[in-house]
């Protein structure tokens, strides 16, 4: 099979994008801009989750420990505890569940405070993921966005995009497509932590609720899609693993930027699934 035109998929959806896909068992890979620096946005919650389970294994924290989340002062967001109004009491691992499955910013920041971003960056360095860096938690990210935007409620002006720090990989949570597929490969091969922890991480990624990005490329009952999304103005990302009924396993990382600033762009979301399907199909054919 000839190499698929992955860039054409992005063009057709009016986005620019980079992608890396790798067969977790053979190492066969395909990509476009696999080593380009990218903005992670909420994808940073994946390395945070891995370090959370590593610390649990090391006895530094108890995943079942109950945690009080007060009504006041939690990080804002459209889902989970970030959108709820009252005080709640959850275990740390259930906060992790909310952080991954609905990208709950409040739950993520409780865990980030508990685990420590330095520890997450230390783990990434130890894994050799030298181009992946967590600059700030959700609160820090939203604060930088608000400071650069001024009036956050106003419609986004395409001319202001250039001055948003959270859209610049040099000044926010960052990685490359290849480093994200490497991290996912370590989770799927039980190398990022012990087998039980890696299984817990895989379970949470498999319970992510969003059907419109990576999963949209694989609308099959017998294919498992696990992943973590990331979104910011013009940014639509997802990294994940696709598992086929014949046992084939593929890590895919897709990072896109839309040319338009409209929030709702289903074709841009779907291009993530389309490009992933084309990349995985190519890996299976070669």
């Amino acid at each position, binding site marked *: *099979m000839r190499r*698929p035109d992955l860039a054409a998929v992005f063009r057709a959806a009016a986005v620019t994008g980079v992608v890396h896909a790798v067969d977790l068992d053979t190492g066969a890979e395909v990509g476009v801009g696999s080593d380009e620096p990218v903005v992670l946005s909420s994808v940073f919650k994946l390395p945070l989750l891995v370090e959370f389970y590593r610390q649990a294994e090391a006895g530094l924290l108890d995943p079942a420990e109950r945690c009080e989340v007060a009504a006041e002062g939690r990080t804002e967001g459209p889902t989970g505890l970030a959108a709820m109004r009252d005080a709640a009491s959850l275990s740390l691992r259930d906060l992790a569940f909310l952080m991954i*499955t609905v990208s709950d910013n409040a739950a993520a920041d409780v865990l980030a405070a508990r685990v420590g971003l330095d520890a997450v960056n230390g783990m990434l360095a130890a894994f050799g993921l030298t181009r992946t860096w967590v600059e700030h938690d959700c609160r820090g990210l939203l604060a930088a966005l608000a400071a650069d935007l001024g009036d956050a409620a106003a419609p986004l002006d395409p001319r202001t995009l250039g001055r948003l720090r959270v859209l610049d990989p040099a000044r926010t949570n960052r990685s490359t497509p290849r480093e994200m597929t490497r991290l996912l490969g370590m989770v799927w091969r039980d190398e990022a932590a012990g087998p039980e922890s890696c299984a817990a991480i895989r379970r949470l990624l*498999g*319970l*992510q*609720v*969003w*059907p419109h990005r990576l*999963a949209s490329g694989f*609308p*099959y*009952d*017998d*294919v*498992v*899609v696990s992943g973590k999304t990331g979104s910011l103005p013009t940014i639509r990302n997802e990294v994940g693993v696709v*598992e*086929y*009924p*014949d046992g084939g396993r593929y890590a895919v990382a897709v990072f896109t930027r839309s040319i338009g600033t409209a929030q709702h762009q289903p074709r841009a979301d779907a291009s993530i699934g389309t490009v992933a*399907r*084309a990349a995985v*199909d*190519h890996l*299976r*054919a070669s």
Partner: protein
Amino acid sequence: MDLIRHLRLFVVVAEELHFGNAAARLGMAQPPLSQRVKRLEEELGVRLFDRSSRQVRLTEAGRLLLTEARDLVARADRVRELMARAGGDGAAGLRIGVPPDLGGTAVAALLAALREADPPLRPALTEMCTADQVRALADGELDGGVIRHPAGAAGLTYGPMLVQHPGVLLPADDPLAEFSSVHLADLATRPLVLLPRESEPGLHEETLTDCRRHGYVPGEVHPAAHPQFTLGLVMSGTAVAFGPRAEQPGVVWRPLLGDPLAWRVSAAWRRPGPAVEEFGAVAVRVLRENAGMIDDGAARARRIAHRPASGLLA
């Protein structure tokens, strides 16, 4: 006494319920016929006919015997027929049915292998769909066959089950041809060409059920028995089809993701015997080597991956 010969006479009398008419039908005089029926009654120790009234009637024992006698007589005829067809070398001819789409290579290999068997068999192959083969086997018009499952036929003996995982034949300009493999669900509502329900009832039903289970609901189902007709419909963009790999301009073949379809085939026969069992062994070998079929292990259990977005009560 010659039991079969006596039973043959008994059957005719039982059918006529009149010794005179039966004797006429048998081309013999009535007294020897009556004597032979008496001999049979003595031999079996029962009365077969009630001759007290003016009309001859079957007794209960006679009614029981009639069914068995017909069967025995038919089988005896069959033995004679077989032996009559046996050549000077003593090998019987073997009447075999094969599906019309078996493929030239497999047909040739089957014939060659049967001729090379020890002792050599003299095969006569007929192309015949499963439904017709099942009928012909039951009626004794075929000695053996290669049939598709589920066959839903009672009283047949099957050889080892072989399986073929068909791929999909797409028109060359179908967007799915871009991919190296296709999932059944990708076929969406494309029309499908499939072997007819009348000729392959089991395969037809099972295939459509599997398609729906995997998310493919054909907008139309065109029956087609002949591979060339099937290819024509695909080439023209009228429909897609399932089948083994085919090289044909205007058509692309792609494997189906996860081998969702399993077309099962086996040799089948009704009356066991060395010749037909030899055929069974040969057929398995030939189908494996020349028709791309593999041993049917335990069917792979299909794992459904539930996703929150489309889960229960989502």
